[in-house]
C-alpha cells in the first residue's frame, strides 16, 4: 500500500547511526556519544515508567477481583475494601461454583457446536467468494458483511417470534442457532481474506486436472485452512461465551449460559455478596482467559480480521 512513496527511498540499506530503528538497536548504542546515550537511557526510563504505570492501572480490577474473592464475610467492611484478606477463605469460590457450574456446563455445550458450525459455513463461503468467483460476488459479500454490523436490537422482536414459531426450544438450542447465523458474516470475512492470499495457480491447477468445485475445496483448500480455522474457532468461541444480549432474550436462569447466571448472581441477591460474585466472575472468565493466554497469537489474528482491512 506504500509502494509509491517507498520507491523514492535512495538507499534502504544506508545506516543512520543516530536512529534506533529496527531490531538491531543494541549494537547501534556503541556508536553513540556519552551525551546521546544519556538521553537514550533517560527516554527509555520514561517509557518504562509510563508502561509500568499503565500496567498497574489495567491490573487494578484484577487485584480487586482476586482479593475480594478470598475474603470472608468479616472482611466486608468498606474500610478494608482495598486491604488483603485478614483470613483467606475458599468459601466464595465454593459458593460461586455451586451457583454457576450448571450454567458453565451449558455454555460449553453451546459454544462448541456454535463455533464449529459457523466456522465451517464461513470457510465454504470464503472459498466461493474469494476463489470460485461469479458475477457480483463482491456485492454478495458486502450484503453478507452488513449482517455483522446491524444492532441485533433491530431484529430482536421478530426474531423472538420466529424462533418461537420454528419450535426451537428456549435456551441452548436457540442460542446455538443464533450464534451460528449471526456468526456467518465475520467467519466469512476472515476466511475470504485468508483465501485471497492463496495463489490462484493452486486452484487453477486443480481445475485443469478436472476437479470440480467441491473436490477443489475438499482436497486443496481445506488442508491449508488450519490457521484460519484456529482464528475463527477462537473468535467464535470467545464471542459466544461472552454473549449476554441473546442470552437475556432467549434463555432463563434455568437454561441459560454462564453470562446470564453470573449477572443474576451479581444482581439478584438482596444483600450484595461481592465475594461470591467476584469469584463467579473469575470462574466465568477462566475459559476465555486460558484461550487468550495459550493461543493469544491467534486471538490477535481474529481481532485484526475484525477490523475488516484483513
Amino acid at each position, binding site marked *: 500500500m506504500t509502494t509509491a512513496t517507498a520507491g523514492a527511498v535512495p538507499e534502504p540499506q544506508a545506516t543512520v547511526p543516530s536512529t534506533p530503528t529496527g531490531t538491531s538497536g543494541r549494537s547501534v548504542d556503541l556508536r553513540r556519544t556519552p551525551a546521546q546515550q544519556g538521553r537514550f537511557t533517560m527516554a527509555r526510563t520514561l517509557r518504562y515508567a509510563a508502561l509500568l504505570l499503565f500496567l498497574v492501572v489495567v491490573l487494578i*480490577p484484577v487485584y480487586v*477481583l482476586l482479593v475480594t474473592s478470598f475474603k470472608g464475610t468479616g472482611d466486608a467492611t468498606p474500610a478494608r475494601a482495598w486491604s488483603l484478606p485478614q483470613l483467606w477463605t475458599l468459601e466464595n469460590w465454593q459458593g460461586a461454583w455451586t451457583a454457576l457450574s450448571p450454567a458453565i456446563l451449558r455454555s460449553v455445550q453451546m459454544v462448541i457446536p456454535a463455533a464449529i458450525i459457523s466456522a465451517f459455513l464461513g470457510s*465454504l463461503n470464503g472459498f466461493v467468494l474469494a476463489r470460485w468467483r461469479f458475477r457480483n460476488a463482491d456485492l454478495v459479500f458486502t450484503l453478507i458483511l452488513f449482517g455483522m454490523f446491524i444492532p441485533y436490537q433491530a431484529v430482536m422482536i*421478530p426474531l423472538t417470534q420466529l424462533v418461537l414459531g420454528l419450535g426451537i426450544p428456549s435456551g441452548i438450542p436457540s442460542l446455538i442457532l443464533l450464534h451460528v447465523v449471526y456468526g456467518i458474516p465475520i467467519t466469512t470475512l476472515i476466511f475470504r481474506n485468508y483465501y485471497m492470499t492463496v495463489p490462484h495457480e493452486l486452484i487453477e491447477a486443480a481445475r485443469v486436472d478436472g476437479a470440480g468445485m467441491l473436490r477443489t475445496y475438499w482436497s486443496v483448500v481445506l488442508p491449508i485452512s488450519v490457521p484460519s480455522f484456529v482464528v475463527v474457532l477462537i473468535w467464535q468461541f470467545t464471542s459466544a461465551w*461472552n454473549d449476554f444480549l441473546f442470552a437475556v432474550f432467549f434463555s432463563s436462569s434455568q437454561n441459560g449460559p454462564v453470562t446470564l447466571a453470573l449477572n443474576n448472581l451479581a444482581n439478584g441477591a438482596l444483600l450484595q455478596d461481592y465475594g461470591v460474585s467476584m469469584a463467579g*466472575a473469575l470462574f466465568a472468565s477462566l475459559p476465555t482467559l486460558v484461550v487468550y493466554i495459550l493461543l493469544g497469537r491467534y486471538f490477535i489474528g481474529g481481532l485484526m480480521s475484525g477490523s475488516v482491512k484483513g
Partner: protein
Amino acid sequence: MLKTLRRAGPPLLLLAPSLILVGVFVYGLIVANFQTSITDNHTAAQATGREPSVLVWFRNYTDLLASQAFQHSLTNLVLYTLVFLVGTMLMGFLWAWILDKPIRGEGIFRSVYLFPMAVSFIASGVVWRWLLNSNQGEQASGLNRLFQNVGLDFLQNNWWNNVTFGITAIALPAIWQLSGYVMALFLAGFRGIPDELREAARMDGANEWKLYRHVLFPQLSPIALSALIIIGHMSLKAFDLIMSISKPANYQTKVPAVDMYVFKSSFDYANSAAVGAILLIIVAVVIVPYLMHLHRQEKQ
C-alpha cells in the same frame, strides 16, 4: 443462459445455506421489525396476537423522539460514545506509540493491556460495579475509597448515579476493555510502515513532529478509521455493561438498547421495535458509507 447457470450455479448452491439464513435473519427480520414498529402493538394481548394491532405509521417514532425520556437516552448515547471513543483512541494510540520502538518486555505489556478484551462485559461489570460504588466518606468503597487512601479525596464522586454525566462513568470500564484492542490495531499500523520511509524523512531533515505529522499519521489514518468505526459501532449497541453495573430501569444510565429491552419486557412490542429501528438507522448512517468505501477500494 444455460452456460451462466452452469458457471454460477455450483458456487451459489454452496453459498445457499448462508444466503438464506442471512437473508431471512438479517434482511427479512429488519423488514418484519419495521412492520411491527408502525403498529399500535403496545399490550401483551396484542403481542401474543389475541387482539389485533392497527397501523399507525410513524406515530411511535414521533412520540418516542418527542418524549423527554427517550431524548435522555439519545443524549446518554452521544455522551457515552464520545467518552468511549476519545478514551480508547487516546489510550490505544499512546500505548502503541510507546511500544512501537523495540523495548524489552514488550510482549508482557502488550498482553496485559490486551487481556481485558477476552473478558465478558458481564464479568468485568461485576468488579466495576464495585469500583464505581457511589458511597463517599466513611461508607466509601471502590475507587472512592482508593482516592481517599492516596489523598485524592476531591476526586470522589457519585459515578453512574449522576443524572447528566452518570453514563460517562459506564464508559470507563468500556475504555478499560477496548483500549488494548485499539493499541493492537495501531501497533500493526506502525509496524506496517516501512523503516525506509522514516529514514528517508529523517534524511530530509524532518524532526520527530514533522515525521509524525507528514509521514506516519497519513499512513495510520486507514487504521484509525477502522478503529473509530469498530469502537463507535460497539458503543451504539452498549447494553451488557449497563445491565450489569446499574439496573436496566435506571434512568441515569439508560440508552436506546436498554429502552428496547425494557419495552420488550413490558410487552410493548411496537415501541421496542421502533427503538431497534432507530438504532439501526443510526448505525447504518455510519456503516453503509464505510462499507461502500471498502467495496470501492477493493475494486481498485
